[in-house]
């Protein structure tokens, strides 16, 4: 994929994540007291509210793509080379996939009442 397209994805995921993370934080501090919002029952209720669970999944994907692409860019700025660049790119993709899978497992199981 061309680097210009990757950067457009990087900026797009950043803007999307900013908007959704703002909603995520507002849920913590506006719906009820911050400490109260972190109670087990309240957090579980958040996950079982399907639109919120979908939003969490979107945040997970957007931030994972943005974060690991950012890491890839930083590592490629530090050092260059065919095999190094390939290792960094595939390493970041693999780490991103693992994080998305692990986070999705939490969201899915909690929203389906398996917690």
């Amino acid at each position: 994929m061309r680097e210009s397209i990757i950067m457009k994805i990087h900026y797009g995921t950043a803007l999307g994540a900013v908007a959704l993370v703002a909603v995520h934080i507002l849920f913590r501090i506006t719906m009820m007291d911050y400490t109260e919002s972190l109670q087990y029952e309240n957090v579980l209720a958040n996950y079982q509210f399907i639109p919120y669970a979908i939003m969490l999944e979107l945040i997970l994907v957007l931030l994972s793509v943005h974060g690991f692409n950012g890491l890839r860019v930083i590592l490629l700025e530090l050092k260059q080379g065919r095999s190094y660049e390939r290792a960094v790119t595939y390493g970041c993709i693999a780490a991103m996939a693992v994080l998305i899978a692990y986070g999705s497992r939490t969201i899915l199981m909690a929203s389906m009442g398996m917690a």
Partner: protein
Amino acid sequence: MANPGRYGIERFAYWLMRITGLGLLAYFIGHIYETSSLLNGKDAWDAMLEMTQTTEGHVLLTLVIGMCVFHTANGIRVMLGHGGVGVGKPSRPDYPYAPASQNSMHKLCIYASIGLAALAMMYGISVLFGE
């Protein structure tokens, strides 16, 4: 290389952008792991909360708030700069070749990003420690 006094606020912002990005990625991974304890029941969740809802945990969260706000505000500046916003009209390069993208408006935006991050951290402290 990492001497902000020698290279100016732009180089400082360049490094801060990368450091905050790495910090936020580390926090994000930790946050995913932290929230996964939800699946192990109320006791596991409460034990995890007990570990994070401490003075050290709140200080860390305040730093995360600051990193997040700076990374966002400075990121929007970089994005606009890449899109040609706020870099002025193209002109003949004359000595001393001042880069158009490093003009006073962009410098002001960097300072504003740092100021916003400081304000957000203060708000974060008031919410986290004001319980």
